[in-house]
């Protein structure tokens, strides 16, 4: 028997597989397909203080081995989520939930996290300082170590829950941002969010996405994500949730060997709603092949060679 349990900044998960924010809504649609209790956790859709309608259509484009999205953080707003979604989640998932939190100012991030501090099911706050699809006038908080640290501190000040900062890959040196978050008190990191990309429609000669650019995700980005997880693992001591292009149990194992304590699966869920379930079912066999009986041993395994 392979032991799939892991611990993420003190939060015990029955296995390391977590559907990534924005690809799993608040769990409703997948609960129609399978019993969510097989999951280690899930990260809900990035939620902001006010409800957001998101960007105009089209928001989705296909790319080789991947996709672009420019959803633009469409969500019903934090109060509605706490009132309506949280009680519903209680019915469909009984493990610890990761709350992905969006924001446009330090104050908004702090206020969102403060509200979540009292929500029992939410075990981890995942603070998204990396969404490429919202225009807050200027760069992302995640593109600059100082801003990233400021958000971290603002959030840590208002919550007792572990805070994971979600980083963008669209930077020259992700380890610099990672270290800034660690020093500011982050309990963990999640990386990567999407790579900025675009497509042009040859017929109309216009950008395919109404928002012009979108976030690239899916298998295409896996080698980039893996490299960043490796680099950040060497740079910080706090746990990392590895994310980006994972679509099989083998990919998840590779991500853990690079340094991830847990693994988020995003775009793969959209192509195959059963992706996470299938990965979890295959994990014991992959661990056996790799000769480990406790999956957490994989974390960082490729660094000590």
């Amino acid at each position, binding site marked *: 028997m392979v032991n799939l349990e892991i611990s993420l900044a003190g939060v015990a998960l029955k296995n390391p597989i977590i559907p990534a924010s*924005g*690809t*799993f*809504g608040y769990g*409703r*649609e*997948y609960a*129609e*397909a399978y019993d969510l209790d097989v999951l280690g956790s899930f990260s809900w*859709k990035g939620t902001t203080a006010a409800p957001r*309608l*998101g960007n105009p*259509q*089209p*928001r*989705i*484009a*296909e*790319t*080789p*081995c*991947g*996709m672009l*999205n420019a*959803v633009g953080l*469409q969500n019903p707003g934090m109060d509605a989520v706490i009132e309506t979604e949280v009680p519903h989640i209680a019915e469909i998932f009984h493990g610890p939930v990761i709350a992905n939190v969006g924001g446009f100012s330090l104050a908004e991030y702090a206020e969102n996290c403060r509200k979540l501090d009292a929500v029992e099911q939410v075990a981890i706050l995942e603070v998204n300082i990396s969404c490429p699809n919202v225009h807050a006038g200027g760069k992302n908080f995640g593109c600059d170590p100082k801003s990233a640290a400021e958000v971290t501190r603002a959030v840590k000040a208002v919550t007792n829950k572990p805070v994971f900062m979600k980083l963008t890959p669209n930077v020259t040196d992700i380890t610099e941002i990672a270290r800034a978050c660690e020093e500011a008190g982050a309990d963990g990191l999640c990386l990567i969010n999407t790579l900025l990309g675009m497509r042009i429609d040859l017929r109309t000669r216009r950008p395919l996405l109404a928002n012009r650019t979108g976030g690239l995700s*899916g*298998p295409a980005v896996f080698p980039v994500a893996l490299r960043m997880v490796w680099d950040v693992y060497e740079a910080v001591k706090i746990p990392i949730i590895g994310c980006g292009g994972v679509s099989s149990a083998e990919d998840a194992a590779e991500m853990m060997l690079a340094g991830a304590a847990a693994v988020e699966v995003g*775009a793969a*869920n*959209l*192509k*195959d*709603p*059963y992706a996470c379930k299938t990965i979890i079912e295959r994990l014991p066999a992959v661990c056996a092949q790799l000769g480990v009986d406790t999956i957490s041993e994989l974390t960082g395994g490729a660094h000590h060679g």
Partner: protein
Amino acid sequence: MKKSFFTLEHARQLTEDTYEVVLSGDTSAITAPGQFVNIELPGKFLRRPISICNWTQDALMLLVKVVGDGTRELVRCVPGTEVDVLSGLGNGFDPALAGRHPILAGGGIGIAPLYGLARRMLEAGLPFTVALGFRTGKDAFYLEEFAALGCRLLIATEDGSLGTRGFVTDCIRNVPECDYVLACGPLPMLRAVHGLPQLTGGQFSFEARMGCGFGACMGCTVPTVNGYKRVCKDGPILFREEIVW
């Protein structure tokens, strides 16, 4: 929603770019005409959404217009090819709400879901007229299949080479007693139909670029009078009153 493998039985060419594709497999997740399936194709990351033209207990019929690599590959599949399909997606048409003189209005490849809808309405004993629009007579397809249903069938082509010269809207105008529409077709057509003053209501089938097709990603949402709706889950059928252009 159900994820299962279907076997391609045949792909039959109907016009220069349009094919009838028949798949066999478990159709139990399909509950209404106007729903769609989302098809995985080798080498493509996203699935391809295609309306259900008709279905039986163990077969699925689609009408596919080749517009890019994915649709080209689908119609080129040889019989026996296994295809991964998410079936029974979307809300579908509700013929029970279709009033007393409904017209089924389709444009181009948009006629696909109307065929299954017409068959279900016949079975339910509901009255209706069918109006189909094409660019030219050469682009027309499925006329015999619709004709064989025995319902009233009107046809318009832009160049007048077949039926009325003009658009589906011209057909509808020619049936003044018609007050309700069940429509599917390109956006300009939907818009023109939507604007017809003789209509008191209608159901309109929309398209959108989709990430998932089952409501999870918010990739396909459009504004409606009742707030944003997901074309894939809350649609693809929207009611006339709620549509925002």
